[in-house]
């Protein structure tokens, strides 16, 4: 019974195993990035970057067809360009980061849509662009694993300045010229991981796996390391639950994974030990 429900889908079907490996690989990279996004109050930046990536991937598709490489490179370039321009505008003008980023990602999106339309492709590019974790081939798996590994190495290098910026962005800026580099390196990681998630979950859902487990983990832990570990565990659980949900109940896989993460989030909102509804209302009344 339990075997049939939990193990058999993976034992019997190779595509389920690939989906599991691919989605876990994405979690390892994008969840820590999501935690830092959350701590820096940039949760919605992920969403904006996802839209900025989409046209780049679409252009990659138009140039060389359905090639994982071309779409990935196009997406990364478009994302990095938008991140860089938005960062420069933020640091050089009166505009805040959210406003400059919103402006650039919308411009990028408009260019992408126009380019596709002008090239007269009646094939619905967005069919193709929406990746699916069920259709991961070996090239896509290698790409996901590579991006995850690179992300972990980069986070290890930048961990200290990143953590410092989360706590007190003004401090790092005042004592070190390192701040700007840290910021761009971090945005580059966001772009890389969104592109990776994009292969497997589609654009919108790849933001989901980045942010939702991080938000849930925040309600159980206040230390950064604790949050990252909790978030990764939540994300793993969501991927496994989502794949099983998709297998048994016939829900599309990407949304099923995010719905599972959403369920964990709702439970965390209510029961979370660090600022959940119950703990902040009843257990620590002095705080309210």
């Amino acid at each position: 019974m339990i075997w049939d429900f939990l193990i058999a889908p993976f034992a019997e079907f190779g595509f389920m195993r690939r989906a599991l490996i691919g989605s876990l690989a994405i979690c390892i990279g994008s969840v820590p990035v999501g935690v830092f996004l959350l701590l820096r109050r940039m949760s919605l930046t992920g969403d904006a970057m996802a839209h900025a990536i989409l046209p780049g991937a679409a252009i990659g598709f138009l140039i060389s067809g359905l090639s994982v490489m071309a779409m990935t490179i196009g997406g990364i370039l478009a994302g990095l360009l938008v991140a860089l321009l938005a960062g420069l505008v933020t640091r050089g003008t009166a505009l805040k980061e959210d406003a400059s980023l919103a402006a650039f990602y919308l411009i990028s999106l408009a260019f992408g849509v126009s380019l596709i339309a002008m090239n007269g492709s009646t094939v619905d590019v967005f069919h193709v662009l929406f990746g699916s974790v069920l259709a991961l081939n070996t090239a896509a798996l290698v790409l996901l694993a590579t991006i995850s590994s690179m992300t972990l190495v980069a986070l290890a290098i930048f961990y200290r300045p990143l953590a410092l910026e989360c706590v007190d962005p003004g401090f790092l800026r005042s004592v070190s010229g390192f701040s700007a580099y840290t910021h761009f390196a971090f945005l580059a990681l966001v772009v890389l991981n969104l592109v990776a998630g994009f292969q497997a979950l589609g654009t919108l859902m790849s933001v989901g796996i980045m942010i939702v487990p991080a938000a849930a983990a925040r309600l159980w832990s206040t230390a950064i390391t604790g949050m990252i570990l909790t978030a990764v565990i939540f994300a793993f659980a969501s991927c496994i639950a989502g794949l099983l949900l998709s297998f048994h109940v016939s829900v599309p896989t990407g949304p099923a994974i995010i719905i599972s993460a959403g369920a964990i989030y709702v439970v965390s909102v209510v029961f979370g030990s660090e600022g959940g509804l119950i703990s902040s209302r009843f257990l620590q009344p002095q705080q309210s």
Partner: protein
Amino acid sequence: MKKLLASTILAVVPTTAFAADKINVVTSFSILNDITANIGGDLITLNTIVPAGADAHVFQPTPETARLVAGADLLLMNGIGFEGWMERLEEASGFEGTSIVVTSAVDVLENEEEHEGHGDDDHDDHADHDDHADHDDHADHDDHDDHDDHEEETAAKDDDHDHDHAEETAAKDHDDHGDDHAGHDHGAFDPHAWQDVDNVILYAEAVAAGLAAADPSNAAAYEANLATYRTQLAALDTEIMEILSVIPEGDRTVITSHDAFGYFAAAYDLDFDAPQGMSTEVEPSAKDIAELIEEIREENIRAVFVENITNPQFIEQIAAETDAVVGGSLYSDALTPAGGPASTYIDMMRHNATTLATALSGTN
């Protein structure tokens, strides 16, 4: 005809001098265009709305299209809900010529999975299909053992092939996600009637009759062209039967990514099964894929075909999990541009038959 009275759009249409001699014929898509070219030859000016290689399902009319339609004396379309945009286009462009639905003589196959919620208003020309109104007995697709009630309704031809199997299994996977066809909604009937060569003879006859009515002075020439084309089509029909005859009886089930071969299946005794959801924006679930893989394993299906408009990674994954081979491309809704493997209707059908025979008989 009175094309110059049509609309303000028409004010900017340059009417060429020689157009007075030839009638302006506009067809809705590339396959019908090829059929019409065979009948009309040099006697007509021929244009098509959805060009070769493009997908009529997601076609978006442009001002150019409206101009084309407005200038037409004769508008030929497939009907059966294939060109959902045509009615609005006719109105919006101020078209004043004659429009002909070439499938009016065709026995229409039903789309099993799309019964619910589709009114018959789009299908007035199929009023003689009243027996389809009683769809309730299909509501429960699970009773697959009871095939008899399907047999009468889906069989367009009276031969006793067991061809409705493909549609039924497709319907089975579909019970719990009825919205899959959001981007690909033909209504209750399967419009891909040209996949049966016999039907295309009816298409050609309808085209010839339409051309003769619009341009009586050349009626004899159209009749002669029709006779030639009919001979070619009859030969094609025989040829397809011969090509497909090498496929062993037990291996006649095929997986494709787009459910467009109902008529082909009925006419040539094959079963086509489509992994549903793949030809639309909707992502298939793990359950859909797993059921498909199980079916391929159980029924020992030999070949899986990729169509260029859908995500080939899915098909490759499925092929990797089973003994099935990925058998190349089949063309269903559009011809390839000139020089491609399916640049005419006859080439397309021959290409499909050869590709199927090669993959299914294992002689590759």
